[in-house]
């Protein structure tokens, strides 16, 4: 099953995604793909908070800042967290795919979609407030929108998390 989870900042989407991975997985391994590149105190704190939140839930963590297609997740239930960081890495990091970011990410997602038992992708709602954006920011928002649309087409379930409540836009998980 492929599940796309979106939500605003601090909406509870990560916790929902983690619990869903635990719920959907059976005997197979659970893999957490971490995409946030650690720099500065704030991101380190964020990473630490996430590590503590998923402690005891049985995830093996794989870091992937760029090049999703190179990661080996065969036959596991994968939680990818999160698309907004992966896109920023592919666009702005030295080893990133730059103007091929969209293609690079979608190649990776299609591969994961075929190889995994369940693929849960966490993405962000960044489309509600674009007033202060310059052209670079707008391009980022556009690309994340495209990625969400493309994953949405493949997904069995699209779920938006609003302050910890899942709202299903496609399919449903009881």
């Amino acid at each position, binding site marked *: 099953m492929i599940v796309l989870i979106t939500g*605003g900042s601090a*909406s509870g989407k990560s916790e929902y995604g983690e619990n869903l991975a635990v719920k959907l997985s059976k005997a197979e391994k659970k893999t957490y793909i971490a995409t946030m590149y650690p720099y500065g105190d704030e991101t380190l704190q964020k990473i630490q908070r996430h590590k503590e939140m998923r402690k005891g839930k049985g995830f093996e963590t794989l870091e992937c800042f760029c090049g999703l297609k190179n990661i080996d997740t065969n036959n596991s239930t994968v939680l990818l967290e999160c698309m907004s960081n992966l896109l920023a890495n592919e666009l702005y990091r030295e080893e990133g795919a730059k103007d091929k970011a969209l293609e690079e990410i979608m190649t990776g997602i299609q591969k994961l979609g075929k190889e995994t038992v369940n693929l849960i992708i966490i993405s962000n709602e*960044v489309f509600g407030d674009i007033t202060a954006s310059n052209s670079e920011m707008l391009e*980022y928002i556009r690309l994340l929108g495209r990625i969400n649309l493309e994953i949405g087409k493949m997904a069995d379930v699209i779920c938006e998390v609003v*302050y910890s409540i899942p709202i299903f836009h496609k399919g449903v998980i009881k």
Partner: protein
Amino acid sequence: MIFVTGGAFQGKTEFVKEHFNIQEQEIVDGCLCEYHKIYHARVINHFEGLLLRLLKENKSVSKVIEDLLWENKNAIIISTEIGCGLVPVDTFEREYRETVGRSCCQIVKNANQVYRVHCGIATKIYDSGNS
């Protein structure tokens, strides 16, 4: 507790007044009201504004929420849904929207009903069945 969210200017307050038969004087504005009033008011509007004030004045958000959940269990809380844009460059703004998100999740955990209002239409997105 009842929690009502949705974008700015979507008719959240009007919905609350109509649906729960609320008079204007039963509503306090989180942006302006004296803090002690939130513990007795029937409706707390602009919960996000209350959080902004608390952060700016360096007051403990978690203490206020804890007291609120304890003292005003039947309150209706209205909060504008924020945090659906790019991560702000400003540190305080980042902290603010993070605080709003976490705090609203905490309120929702204790709520019997949650509504989301869009263009004046309220959708009940959660019902604990105990209300």
